[in-house]
């Protein structure tokens, strides 16, 4: 069994008499892209900061790559892009990456090689010797991402990596996350953009008031079929009424029928039934719940931003 990338047990942080994180217990496997979802103020950023040793937990334990949090050898294999990242803007792009590479303990030649490679990857190669103060918000976010990847990390924390990015930039971040997964890097992704989480993550945790409410495999999302839309002719009242055995809320509008169903497993039976009843089926579309619907269902309306 491989060591988990992250393991926490009942991690808790109090600020004064207010608990920002009540008791976080979760495990992220190596090579996994893990989404961390929850409303603002749910303790997501505080949790990440505890894992990185920036904030001391009040109680509980946590391990990064098998070592207790704060262990320098494991931090050398971790990358981090903080939320609302501000920069040493008086540095040039190369100097900025040189600083962070040196702090990672990289050698000069490795650092220079990696710097050029990554600047090329995010399309900033020509800005290598420009001061960061001249960069746009999107360029800064990209250079911040490069900073987090300098040391070829085994685990990367990305706190709202796409905030402030245009669609092209967001696409770039998504592609980089995919590449990281292919390379076997674990990614811990904190994002408000559910559509992004939906396409990038293997698993997600929903957290509220600093506790994990639910952990879900994203592949389960595809099995979580709840609606079926059928376009067919020959949907007689008898056929419609017989369909009720598989679901509720049947609604027929000329040749369009929608119904809620219990799950994906019933789909073949419904299809067979329609064919047997001589209905002419033009479309048979199962719809799954979106992550947004699950988010609201899990965390309640107050979770919507």
């Amino acid at each position, binding site marked *: 069994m491989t060591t988990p990338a992250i393991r926490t047990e009942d991690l808790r942080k109090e600020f004064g008499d207010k608990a920002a994180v009540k008791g976080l217990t979760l495990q992220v496997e190596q090579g996994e892209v893990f989404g961390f979802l929850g409303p603002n103020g749910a303790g997501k950023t505080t949790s990440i900061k505890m894992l990185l040793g*920036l904030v001391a937990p009040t109680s509980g334990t946590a391990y990064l790559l098998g070592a207790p949090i704060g262990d320098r050898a494991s931090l050398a294999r971790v990358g981090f*892009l*903080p939320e609302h990242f501000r920069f040493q803007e008086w540095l040039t792009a190369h*100097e900025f990456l040189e600083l962070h590479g040196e*702090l990672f303990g990289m050698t000069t030649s490795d650092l220079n090689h990696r710097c050029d490679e990554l600047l090329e990857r995010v399309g900033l190669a020509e800005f290598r010797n420009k001061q960061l103060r001249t960069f746009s918000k999107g360029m800064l976010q990209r250079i911040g991402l490069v900073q987090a990847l300098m040391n070829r990390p085994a685990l990367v924390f990305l706190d709202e990596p796409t905030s402030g990015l245009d669609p092209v930039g967001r696409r770039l971040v998504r592609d980089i996350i995919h590449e990281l997964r292919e390379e076997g890097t674990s990614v811990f992704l904190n994002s408000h953009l559910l559509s992004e989480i939906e396409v990038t993550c293997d698993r997600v945790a929903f957290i509220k008031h600093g506790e994990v409410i639910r952990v879900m495999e994203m592949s389960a999302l595809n099995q979580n079929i709840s609606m079926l839309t059928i376009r067919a002719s020959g949907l007689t009242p008898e056929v419609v009424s017989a369909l009720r055995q598989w679901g509720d809320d049947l609604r027929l509008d000329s040749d369009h029928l929608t119904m809620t169903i219990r799950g994906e497993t019933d789909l073949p039976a419904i299809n067979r039934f329609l064919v047997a009843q001589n209905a002419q089926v033009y479309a048979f579309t199962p719809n799954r719940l979106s992550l947004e619907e699950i988010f609201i269902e899990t965390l309640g309306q107050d979770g919507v931003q």
Partner: protein
Amino acid sequence: MKTIWTLARMTFREAIRRRIVLTGLVLGLIFLAVFSVGFHFVYTSASAEIPTAPEAIDNLMKNEFVNMIMLAGLYAVTFLSAAMGALLGADTISGEIISGTIQTVVSKPIRRSDVILGKWLGFAILLAGYAFLMSGGTVLSVWLLSGYTPHNILTGVALIFLESLLIMTISLACSSFLSGLATGSVVFGMYGLSFIGGWVEQIGSVLQNDTAVQVGIVTSLLIPSESLWRRAAFEMQSPISAAIGMSPFGTISVPSPLMIGYAIIYLVLTLMAAISTFNHRDL
């Protein structure tokens, strides 16, 4: 050690890129220019006023006079260096916590103490440059215009630098738990306290009032910055002005070498306190 040096270089680079060094140099040069012009006129008119005195006495008087003006200049340099130290340290840690730049630094595989020591070293190099250029410039301008050089220049200048280093260290330590503005208020308040304590001790010494001297010593123990200046002035002042007594920029109640040792220990402990506070701080 490598990390400390990396961060010191970065601190240094920041000071250059954010034009802190440039502003310091320009204002420093303006100061030196004003001092030199002022000194030139005062010196020429003073030289002209005692034409009848025998040459030996004339020279003696001139030296006393020149020494006093030079110490006045160095006193201003000490204040400017201390203020530079206070300003460099004030916003550094607190500012980086507010902007968040500290997060990507501290989450690297480094010790938190490296951050404090790196910044301290960077600022120390800057202050050394500033204090030596400014006090060196003052002494040089006096020498060029009058041919006078004081005793123990190096010891004196080193003590002026040590004072600015002490103030910067206190500022850095406060900045690890206070905001930049609060740090500035505390440090300048302490500097003022030390200043007034020094004068109370001097005047008390002249009036032979032991209580006033004790008050001065206690403030020197609370913050020994002013006593470093008084030791520097003692090192550089002419023996006669020490014998005559009170001179505004010379010194009567001389801090002992023990006080210098105390100031160094004070500095080291303050730096350790800064590290300890920063180690336990949530960022």
